[in-house]
């Protein structure tokens, strides 16, 4: 189904957080203030790599209006954080490893005073030469950044099967290429920050954005040296994250400053500080050799991945796992030899980012497919079809996966599409000047969801009828813009035929929600849906049985609806909450039901794990989403500018619960991928950022986006599929880059192997004669 407002009909659901957002009344956590609050700032390293000789804070401490000055000596508990591997110091003790490293923090009664106090802190360094590339960090004799080496290796991966040497020897054609991808920045519009409030009862309230409040709470308790229950983390609403706020950022400093000063402390990073200290997408170098038989069947695939993880681990290892899994694409390949390495350097820290290493892998693998198809003089889409995995084939890691028709469905839908059909005979446009060239390209992807085998991936949720008579759900998922609250509303209204005014949705507050895992890896929608599937039956039968007792009507003649329980058949299909006759027609209202019995009797909890493959393959996924993307691109061969004219995303992710949210996620992901492909790179020189703000780090503006973009959703799942709608937070961003570079190749003849696409490669030298009226090379 083509997704748009018209097609969506009644499912075009207005977001409950909309009015607050368009009026500016919604308070983000960085907007919060308290009357006696003070302002926190962090002193970051002057060098990417150095030994700290001494730190003198006396000047800062003596300043008027300064309430606290902290260094590593003031961390009561563990002076480290990191979701997977806690190796990042809250405050560096002796060595700094990147320019975002924190050395001290201050809190003062105005932001200006706090800034001046930072300047008064004297740090003496012994400067060392930074390892500004993976090559430098892997060179023999290179200094070692962390004890948990070997050397500067954070993590290695490997997939080997068959006999690659022999297979290559027997291949008819082999394509070898090295692909490079940029250090992309999340560039969420709201930079990191929040308010940290010591409460009278000794507890600490943290109002700061994260994708996993419980994980923050655990890490903060470790740093502070208190119990987790002593901390409350409120973590929504969030002004964008895309993976970038999953790790702790300002939270340790805000928390420690608040505890030391006994006052609420506000933190809010400037954009420059956010760039300097924040996570980025892993820059990767991916070398690929792929060999095919005379018939065009892939026989052998050799891959070497090198990822620059920067100074600290964060999720560098899982990202490399994901990249390794996805660099085989959705193809069946008998002989495989993949090795990946994630390397510590003195560059900015790389971590989790929408697509999670899939983007890099898919760019490379799909690039190979296009190059091979050209050698075969074969249609690139047909070439893919020949090599695609069968529905019942194992996954890329030879693990069992849940088979769906998603892959062939997205392939076929794209094959039929007008946009892709254009590829065959792109009409020359005589009205265009000869230096404007056009091309069409396409790519396909399978993308795993959830954290994968062997990694704890708990889920759950709570459904209750609260004292006010509202149907209340509580999850530890976060709203960072993706539309989670709207999606939950729609799921609940579908299940209970109720209206949004019957609902209370609670997220993002560790004091009020159960532990249901994190909002990451495109998992929240699926997990919330599965939790509600488990909870609905006990919840509904409790409601109907109490309603039956109160009304004397047999439970099986009753049904939940707007405002309360109705007699079956009397609940009209289209009733609205502001219909004044509802009260007289409901058998028992939710409010009356709630008065019957204790709160616990009305509360239902569930806990389970995200579905994983039964096979012992660490990081292997079980559920996949499928997508095909086509792109028509126009290249100006005088300026090297590439412009995306037309794009189509076909996504097979099961039923579309929330069409507005679905379109938004695919459009947003697509434009983010456009930036990844054409303009975005957080450039570092000698391990320092050159692009320090949004004036030099160029994300797409409204002028740079696709002139046209269509989203087609394939909603079918296998009959009786117990997992429901799959997440689509990432799938819109993973396959656009290879589609664009394929289109650029058709337009100009240039094979691009480096992102963002270097413009100079697309500029035709002046002495190459341009052909009038022909827009093809």
């Amino acid at each position, binding site marked *: 189904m083509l997704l748009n*407002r018209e097609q969506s009909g009644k499912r075009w659901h*207005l*977001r409950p*957080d*909309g*009015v*607050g*957002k*368009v*009026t*500016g*009344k*919604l*308070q*983000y956590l960085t*907007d919060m*203030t308290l009357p006696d609050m003070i302002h926190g700032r962090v002193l970051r390293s002057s060098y990417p790599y150095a030994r700290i000789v001494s730190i003198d804070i006396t000047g800062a401490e003596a300043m008027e209006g300064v309430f606290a000055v902290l260094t590593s000596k003031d961390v009561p508990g563990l002076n480290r954080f990191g979701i997977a591997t806690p190796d990042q110091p809250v405050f560096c003790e002796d060595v700094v490893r990147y320019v975002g490293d924190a050395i001290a923090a201050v809190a003062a009664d105005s932001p200006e005073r706090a800034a001046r106090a930072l300047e008064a802190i004297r740090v003496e360094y012994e400067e060392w030469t930074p390892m500004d590339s993976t090559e430098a960090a892997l060179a023999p004799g290179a200094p070692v950044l962390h004890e948990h080496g070997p050397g500067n290796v954070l993590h290695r991966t490997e997939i080997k099967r068959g006999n690659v040497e022999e297979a290559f020897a027997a291949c008819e054609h082999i394509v070898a290429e090295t692909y490079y991808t940029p250090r992309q920045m*999340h*560039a*969420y*519009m*709201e*930079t990191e920050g929040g308010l940290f409030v010591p409460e009278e009862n000794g507890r600490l309230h943290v109002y700061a954005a994260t994708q996993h409040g419980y994980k923050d709470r655990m890490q903060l308790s470790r740093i502070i040296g208190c119990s987790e229950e002593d901390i409350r983390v409120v973590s929504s*609403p*969030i*002004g*964008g994250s*895309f993976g970038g706020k999953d790790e702790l950022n300002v939270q340790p400093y805000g928390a420690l400053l608040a505890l030391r000063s006994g006052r609420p402390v506000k933190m*809010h990073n*400037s*954009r420059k500080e956010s760039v300097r200290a924040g996570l980025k997408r892993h820059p990767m170098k991916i070398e690929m050799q792929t060999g095919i038989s005379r018939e065009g069947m892939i026989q052998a695939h050799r891959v070497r991945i090198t990822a620059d993880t920067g100074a600290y681990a964060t999720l560098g290892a899982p990202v490399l796992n994901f990249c390794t899994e996805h660099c085989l694409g959705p193809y069946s390949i008998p002989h495989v030899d993949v090795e990946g390495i994630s390397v510590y350097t003195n560059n900015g820290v790389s971590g989790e980012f929408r697509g999670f290493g899939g983007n890099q892998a898919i760019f490379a693998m799909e690039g190979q497919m296009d190059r091979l198809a050209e050698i075969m003089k074969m249609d690139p889409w047909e070439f893919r079809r020949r090599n695609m995995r069968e529905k019942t084939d194992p996954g890329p890691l030879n693990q069992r996966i849940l088979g769906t028709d998603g892959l062939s469905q997205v392939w076929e839908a794209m094959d039929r599409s007008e946009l892709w059909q254009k590829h065959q005979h792109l009409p020359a446009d005589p009205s265009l000047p000869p230096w404007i060239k056009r091309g069409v390209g396409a790519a396909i992807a399978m993308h795993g969801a959830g954290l994968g085998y062997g990694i704890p991936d708990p889920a759950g949720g709570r459904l209750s009828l609260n004292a006010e008579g509202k149907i209340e759900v509580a999850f530890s998922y976060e709203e*960072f*813009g*993706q*539309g989670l609250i709207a999606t939950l509303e729609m799921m609940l209204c579908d299940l209970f035929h109720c209206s949004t005014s019957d609902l209370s949705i609670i997220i993002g507050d560790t004091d009020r929600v159960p532990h249901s895992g994190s909002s990451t890896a495109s998992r929240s929608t699926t997990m919330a849906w599965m939790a509600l599937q488990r909870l609905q039956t006990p919840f509904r039968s409790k409601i109907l049985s109490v309603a039956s007792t109160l009304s004397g009507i047999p439970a099986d003649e009753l049904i939940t609806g707007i405002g309360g329980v109705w007699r079956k058949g009397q609940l009209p299909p289209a009733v609205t909450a502001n219909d004044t006759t509802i009260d007289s027609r409901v058998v028992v209202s939710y409010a009356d039901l709630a008065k019957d019995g204790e709160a616990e009797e009305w509360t239902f909890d569930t806990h389970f794990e995200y579905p994983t493959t039964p096979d012992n393959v660490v990081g292997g996924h079980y559920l996949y989403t499928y997508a095909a993307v086509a792109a028509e691109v126009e290249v100006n061969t005088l300026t090297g500018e590439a412009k995306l004219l037309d794009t189509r995303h076909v996504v097979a992710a099961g039923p579309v619960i929330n069409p*507005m*949210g679905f*379109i*938004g996620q695919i*459009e*947003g*992901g*697509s*434009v*983010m991928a456009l930036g990844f492909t054409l303009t975005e790179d957080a450039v570092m020189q000698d391990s320092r950022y050159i692009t320090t*703000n*949004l*004036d030099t780090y160029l*994300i*797409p*503006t*409204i*002028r740079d*986006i696709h002139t046209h*973009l269509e989203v087609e959703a394939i909603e079918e799942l296998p009959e009786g599929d117990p997992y429901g709608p799959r997440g689509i937070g990432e799938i819109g961003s993973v396959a656009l880059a290879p589609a664009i570079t394929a289109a650029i190749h058709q337009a100009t003849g240039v094979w691009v192997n480096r992102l963002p696409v270097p413009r100079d490669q697309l500029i035709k030298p002046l002495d190459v004669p341009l052909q009038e009226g022909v827009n093809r090379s």
Partner: protein
Amino acid sequence: MSEPLENLWAAVVNGEERKLQIAQSTRLVDVLRTHLNLTGTKVSCEVGRCGACMVLMDGEPVNSCLVMAYQCVGSEITTIEGLHGEKEDELHPIQQAFVEEGGFQCGYCTPGMVISTKALLDRYPQPSQEQIETGLCGNLCRCTGYGGIIRAVRTAGENCVSSFTLITGEKKVNDL
């Protein structure tokens, strides 16, 4: 207690006269967010690139991170909090259109987007694609991919024309 004159800042903010004792080098964005607690105006890049801090100054859109207090003394400033429909508790047609078309996700760019859209539609009630792009290219959005925003601006254009008489001062004459 009389403060030195140069520290007195006065302007009309959302129709109300506001006076403050502040340094004249304070940025307008801080005047609004910190001193007047009008946090609907957002702050993101602080270099005039993202548009999150957009407000109207005497009817013209400006990046409030680039305007100093002394530059806006006596002017009329409209922030997102100053925008509403015919009744004060109603949404402005632009805001309504953003809600209906899904012109936002995280919402952090939204106040600035709405303000820029207001300035755009004041000038071009039925903007062409080109005019939308020019009018909004100073506002970055990382979430939506702009699709929903463009649809919202178009819808708002249609709704504004029917429900509002537009200001047509000299500088706002449609020069299509």
